[in-house]
């Protein structure tokens, strides 16, 4: 049995399936722990969060070939902050997706936060603290409304956040009257532009967020319960975990991350206008998906998501750097996301033959695959 398993390493059978089979055949067999250690390494390679690592590494390796300037210091220093900001926003999206949601209020929240943080201080550092407080208040309120609609009104997250996004756009029109030329306070600008020990602050903050969230999820009681609720909320409910409170908290935390991203964005771009957040909805979802999370919810990795964000921005940079127009940019993005998803599903859902089988026998079997 064990030898067979060792042979299976290259056989493409997933670790879990294989173990399950071994068990059925030999229920009494005790597995020794060293097999487990190797199994863990193999499981890590098979993890859905793994492929984004080599993919990102490969992208950076070929970048100089595609677009010679794209790895230069000036090119990097102009793209890296955007990647960092997208990564922070995508961390919020990851949390929502982990709880089987999808957050469409990203653009509204980011736009609103950029406006609040630039408008109220009036370009002066003195007003910055109260503006930050206001942003935090707005984020908590947004999260609470989202959570209320989802947990109390029973509205699907997709629709609830779509409605809340409209409400946020309303607030934006209300407080700006339809135009905004406000500029960020100087210390916000320097926060976004400066480097500490040679590393851009935005990167430090993004890395801090990712590491903190990752550790939080793994080691704190609240984080662990959050993961438990996301994995199987009916079981969590049976186990006595207040599921609704966690879902509620998810939307609040997510809104806070969008706002953090927005504050850095405002500092970085200067005059953010009214719709700075529009560019963050689809990319935030894409980054989560590239990072290996499934839209069916449950699992997710903020580290994977952050890499997904880096990958997406670098891909953009490469295509631009190669002199290709936006149109090609879009087509390449679509191709990359589509093939990444297709490959992952083929990996997870056995193999290509099944896909071909489905194609040939359309309608014979209802597909029961993961709704990603």
């Amino acid at each position, binding site marked *: 049995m064990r030898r067979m398993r060792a042979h299976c390493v290259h056989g493409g059978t997933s670790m879990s399936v294989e173990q399950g089979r071994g068990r059925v055949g030999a229920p009494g067999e005790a597995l020794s722990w060293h097999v487990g250690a190797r199994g863990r390494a193999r499981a890590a390679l098979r993890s859905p969060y793994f492929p984004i690592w080599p993919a990102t590494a490969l992208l950076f390796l070929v970048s100089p070939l595609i677009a010679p300037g794209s790895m230069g210091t000036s090119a990097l220093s102009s793209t890296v902050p955007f990647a960092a900001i997208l990564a922070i926003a995508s961390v919020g999206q990851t949390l929502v997706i982990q709880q089987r949601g999808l957050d469409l209020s990203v653009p509204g929240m980011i736009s609103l936060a950029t406006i609040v943080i630039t408008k109220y201080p009036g370009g002066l550092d003195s007003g910055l603290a109260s503006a930050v407080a206001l942003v935090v208040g707005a984020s908590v309120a947004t999260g609470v409304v989202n959570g209320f609609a989802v947990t109390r009104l029973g509205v699907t997250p997709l629709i609830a956040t779509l*409605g809340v996004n409209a409400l946020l756009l309303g607030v934006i029109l209300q407080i700006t009257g339809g135009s905004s030329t406000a500029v960020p306070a100087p210390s916000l600008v320097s926060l976004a532009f400066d480097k500490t020990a040679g590393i851009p602050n935005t990167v430090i903050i993004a890395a801090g967020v990712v590491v903190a969230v990752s550790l939080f999820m793994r080691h704190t009681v609240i984080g662990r319960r959050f993961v438990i609720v996301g994995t199987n909320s009916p079981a969590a409910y049976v186990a006595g975990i207040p599921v609704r409170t966690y879902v509620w908290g998810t939307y609040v935390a997510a809104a806070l991350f969008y706002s953090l991203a927005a504050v850095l964005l405002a500092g970085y771009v200067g005059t953010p206008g009214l719709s700075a957040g529009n560019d963050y909805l689809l990319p935030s979802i894409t980054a989560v998906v590239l990072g290996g999370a499934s839209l069916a919810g449950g699992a997710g990795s903020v580290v994977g998501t952050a890499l997904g964000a880096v990958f997406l921005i670098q891909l953009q940079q490469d295509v631009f750097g190669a002199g290709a127009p936006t149109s090609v940019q879009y087509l390449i993005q679509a191709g990359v996301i589509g093939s990444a998803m297709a490959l992952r599903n083929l990996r997870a859902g056995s193999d290509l033959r099944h896909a071909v089988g489905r194609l040939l026998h359309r309608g014979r079997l209802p597909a029961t695959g993961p709704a990603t």
Partner: protein
Amino acid sequence: MPAPGSHDALLCLTDIVKTYSGVRALSGVSFDVRSGEVHALLGENGAGKSTLMAVAAGALAPDSGTVEIGGRRLERPVPSDAQSLGLSVVYQHPSVLDDLTVAENLLFALAPDRRPAHRSRAAWAREQLRVVGCDADPSARAGELSVADRQLLEIAKALALDAKVLVLDEPTESLTAAEADRLIAQVHAVRARGAAVVYISHRLPEVRRIADRITVLRDGSVSGTVLADEVRDDEILQMIVGRPMSQTFPEKPPRPSEPLAPHFVASGLRGHRLRDVTVDVAPGEIVGLAGVEGNGQREALRALAGLLPLRGEVEIGGVRADTRTPRRSRRAGIFYLPHDRHGEGIFGALSVRENLTALVLRELARGGTVRSRHETRTASTQVDAFAVKTASLESPVSTLSGGNQQKVVIARTFLARPKVLLFDEPTRGVDVGARMEIYRLLRQAADEGRSVIVASSDAVELEGLCDKVLVFSRGQVVRVLTGPEITESNITGAAITATVEHTADPSDARSARPRRRRFAAFARSDLAPSGVIALIIAALAVATDVGHPLFLGTRDVTSMLLLASILAFASMGQLVVLLGASLDLSVGPLVGLTVVILSFFATPGAGYGGLALGVLVAGAVGVAVGATNTFLIRTLRIGPVISTLVTYIALQGVSLLLRPQPAGPLGSGVTTGIQQAFGPIPVVFVVAVVVALVADRFLHRHHLGSELRAVGSDEVRAFRVGARVAPTLLAAHVVCALLAVAAGVVLASQVGIGDPSLGTDYTLTSLAAAVLGGASIFGGRGSFVGAFLGALLLQEVINTTTFLGLAQAWQEYLPGLLIVLGAGVYSRMRSAAVSRSGSTT
């Protein structure tokens, strides 16, 4: 008695053998039913009744043996083949399509050419229902029927097929006495027509009333076939029980001479399926809840666990316990171990360690942080103590065998120091070796002074394990067995001879006054949102007109209606896929791409010929987009959101590729042509109205419409009743794309130039309009008129806010509020309807 296989038998199973992973479920069973006969099939849970009938219905392939229906052999194990040979099964859990009407569910049973014309359908359906004694409204949504009516509907479906062989699997389990009487009368009528009936039941009194012959299965073989009026109850019972005890059980403690004061007392329990139940557990006791499945045992456990509402007193060690929520039950020391291990027990994707410590994270933590080493040590101790076989502590728990998963659940619960253990089917899906250990652990828990209550459908298990057994029937305890009385025979005997009747639930919606009922039915229908939205639209228009008498009948109205029709086409497209429980984000970019395409063909010189060519090309692109979306969703199994996000991005790319900058003015003759109006009403608006009306009619009158809603309602059930799932979804995505193209044509006339940046907004707005119009993104529900009106309202809000003197912000506030509140109200109504129908699954 004729030998099995005799020629007047309409169903004849010969020497059926079926093995599941080494376990013999059926070892050479022969069974036949003759024309004009009711043949009852009895046996304990797991005796092989369902397996045998699944083989007969073609749902399972036997290892060996033959199935003959109506004298013809079933060559392939395919349900539709068995059906066309004349066999029809009514399952205990009806496979009714909830979002379809009662009449549509009935129609699905018939081959398309046998379906009655639309006009006579209601009468036809009413007749079919009358036959089974069901007075449900044929136009009611099946999901809103009571459990009993759903059961009757299933039977009516089987009868409408004119089945030669009718298999009824515990048909009266959820019926009241009066309903069961009606059903039994119907079975008599079917028999009189010459059909053969297989009647699976656990209730002897009922079997006595109905059956001509009785076959008893035990452990996968026939333990006897007898004529019903030549056999006594106790003889049948003898045939049912007597399964060898294949298990060794931990020794029971001697019964104390004086009964001990109970440690756990739950008295006067009333609730869902519970009628005045009392359970008490003395120290050291294991109490079993027995009975045929679905008679309140599970509900008693779930109610005590805080998962179901409960009235009654619960005391632990003399202290009252609060069981209003799972959390409060847990605080009181009550822990529930569910029967549905995958759904409610384990956290499948998480590791063994994470599962083991899930309930005690707080105890393992210091300052809110789980102490990692402490946790690992605790988990590893539990793995050893409970002999959990796992590759490592970090293996996902889903990779463990069923028995080891169950041990993880037990180990996890023991770690939390429970006072009361409620164990629902402790050994379901558990291998023999692990079973023994689980029994030992339960006995150990009882010895430690915890109150252990076990619900099980396995009487042998209860006999071996329990110190006291309560036998349930229809929500009541019909017998309490203690000490030497606890035998399989007594348990099964009490369960199958109980004569308790269901009584009608006073909270049943059907007993409500008829007028309110009719209003409630309207409120829950797909039309209600349309009515409400139409009212809001009218009110808004009147309010605007009062303030600005010039509003109605002016150019403002014309341009508003023109814009509304663009959105209406897009949202009707979105609705088509929503009905099929899919989603299309690429609607917006496709609207934009259509504008770009037209800018190449409908050029100033090209006239209407150019327009026609452009529309044709855009239409072809639409078909390709719909097919691509379906390919990504169905074949590559990338979910609808990501699939259509991919096409969304790609279509934007194509638009920009064709027109990097806005260019290519459209011929003004063509654009004014598209924008032509009757007075203030644009022609395209009228077209949109007509499309909405026709599409709604099609949706409800044409078979393809109900097929689409069936697929969206429940793909698996739809497949089972013969809907063509994949072609239906392909058609839905293509139609959606074509409607997006229609929206693009109107938008092109509005902007007059090939602008690549347009259209994307229509993605989310179309979704909002469809949902506002009552569509459910879970599929199966919605109306085109609703989507149309939703679009009109969203556009009206944008156009009238300024007239009404509202700040511009209200252009966003109003839609936002409408979406959130509207979706909230719809969701409430639907869940209310579902809970009224009493379905618990």
